[in-house]
């Protein structure tokens, strides 16, 4: 049990590649922290620096109050699960899990006990004598997790452990790892590029881009209050719709006017923060579920758009729409009346909408 603190850490790879740029991140004891971001944003690099597999160019990393910059991986009391499992192909499942304990000179009986316990937790008991090649992908990943838990480390590190599994297996393993976390009550740091994994598993999520941390927050806070355009677009599936336009003032009310398109009146409570943006360009963001259909185009913030694609998901339907100038997605009730090619009448609900500054990409409201 330990907290992991990453303090002003940078990583510069040979050839002056700055993969991680001055990041600071505090992972609390027993927290499930997810690092998420697009490919190449430095998630793995950060995790590998915590593991000790990659040298830290600047800054320091603490695991349980101890600066570990110069501590080799085996003495950091961490365990890591790799994307490609990294099981020892020539060893049985039992030996794979026992290897780390043997090297640490545990007693035979203790090794036996721990491996069996891990096997029980992970449902691997029938496979202890098998070689990795005779296991399915999900089972292999479970062995990799087992190898980590037998050591009872201070922190678990996962680098995209589920990305080689098929969709169904991924969902199953996702819940299993979450359960494991509450069972073991250990600090876990989990890297993924999949925002669904991040949302469903993390106590907190750290969103990264280009070696910088964009935002660290709980899943719902990230979803509701993204600090910038990138986080707003990255978290959420289907993603948030963005519209370019300007803020206008008419009769003491403020409006967002999309470039040669629709107009929406903005909530009063935004007035203070957007006053300085009147007649200036902004980006308006609204999530697909905040666009609802109605029988005809009346009332405030109603817009019309052509339906281009309909994707029924069962419980709900995604409408891919076009305002003549702009594509966007609405997530509506499955039993809506529209067909492809028709005009849809929609209403924008602004409670959770956002405005972004196009220059800084920061959230205005």
């Amino acid at each position, binding site marked *: 049990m330990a907290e992991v603190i990453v303090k002003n850490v940078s990583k510069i790879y040979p050839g002056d590649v700055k993969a991680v740029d001055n990041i600071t991140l505090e992972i609390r004891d027993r927290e499930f922290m997810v690092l998420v971001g697009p490919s190449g944003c430095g998630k793995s690099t950060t995790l590998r620096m915590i593991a000790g597999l990659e040298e830290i160019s600047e800054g320091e990393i603490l695991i349980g109050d101890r600066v570990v910059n110069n501590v080799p991986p085996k003495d950091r009391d961490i365990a890591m699960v790799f994307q490609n499992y990294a099981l020892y*192909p020539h060893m049985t499942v039992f030996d794979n899990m026992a*290897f780390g304990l043997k090297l640490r000179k545990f007693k035979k009986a203790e090794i036996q006990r721990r491996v069996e316990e891990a096997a029980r937790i992970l449902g691997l008991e029938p496979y202890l004598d098998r070689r990795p090649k005779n296991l399915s992908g999900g089972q292999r990943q479970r062995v990799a997790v087992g190898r980590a838990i037998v050591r009872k480390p201070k922190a678990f590190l996962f680098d995209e452990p589920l990305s080689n599994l098929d969709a169904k297996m991924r969902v199953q393993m996702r819940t299993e790892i979450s359960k494991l976390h509450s069972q073991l009550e250990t600090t876990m740091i989990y890297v993924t590029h999949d925002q669904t994994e991040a949302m469903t598993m993390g106590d907190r999520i750290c969103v990264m881009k280009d070696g910088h941390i964009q935002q660290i927050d709980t899943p719902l806070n990230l979803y509701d209050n993204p600090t910038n355009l990138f986080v707003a677009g990255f978290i959420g599936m289907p993603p948030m719709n963005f519209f370019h336009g300007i803020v206008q003032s008419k009769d003491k009310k403020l409006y967002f006017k999309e470039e040669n398109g629709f107009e929406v009146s903005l909530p009063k409570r935004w007035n203070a923060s957007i006053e300085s943006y009147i007649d200036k360009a902004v980006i308006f963001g609204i999530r697909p579920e905040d666009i609802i259909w109605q029988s005809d185009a009346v009332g405030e913030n109603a817009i019309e758009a052509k339906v281009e694609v309909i994707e029924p998901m069962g419980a709900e339907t995604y409408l891919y729409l076009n305002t003549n100038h702009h594509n966007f997605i609405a997530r509506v009730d499955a039993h809506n009346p529209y067909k492809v090619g028709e005009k849809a009448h929609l209403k924008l609900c602004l409670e959770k909408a956002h405005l972004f500054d196009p220059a800084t990409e920061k959230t205005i409201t």
Partner: protein
Amino acid sequence: MFKRTMRCNRGLRLLILHMTLALIATTLALPFVWMLFTSLKRLDEVGLESWLPEVFQWHNYADVFAMKGILFGRWYWNAIYVATWVTFLQVFTSSLAAFSFARLKWRGRDTVFLLYLATMMLPGLVMMIPNYQIMINLGLVDTLSGLILPCAFSAFGTFLMRQFMLSIPQSLDEAAEIDGASKWTLFWNVILPLSRPALVTLTIFTFIGNYNSMFWPLVMMKTPARYTLPIGLMAFESSRGQQTNLLMAAVAMSVIPMILLFVFMQKQLVKGIMLGGVKG
């Protein structure tokens, strides 16, 4: 319909393939068969048209050991002794060097490897004189150790092992490192067992190559009791006139270790190919 043609085609292809292979195998086996039959003939039968001996002279094999001036048993042992040591040392040193070249990071590593590899460009005969000079200095001329030592290291073996080790995923090293493995443990318990196919290949190449090697022993050895088989077999021809039947019996016996090695190692080779611990 389409499927059936496919299957016919496949059957035909297999048939042609097998017949070709059988033909090649027969061609290769023929001299061997001739050798076996000749080794069972009387001396005056050798060279006659008939391949088969009139009466199988099994005692020829025992006679080889009893020939005067021919220390067949001794040479046999020397050859196996030298080849085994050379194989063991060469496989071991090559693996260690390959591990360093493939899995450890140090400055100038790849340059050193290229330089080492460049020594393969030198023909073996060029090395013979300097090697001999070194053996004189070490006082190892005319000893079995002198046969073994210069062959204990091999750029080719290192190259072969390195290329194989490069194909083992790097994440295994990292997993082992986190598991608490030292570099030696990583080498001995992870990388080496996984390199089995390359180890087997190198073992076969090295053993056969050294077991059959003639020039270096010819240069080095003076005392007949320290000959290895290839030079010993030459002595057969010169000292006893042409006893072709006995010579063939000796050659037939000398082939046995190589066949045994191959049969044994081939099984290992098949067993050794194990993948699946790593997805990639």
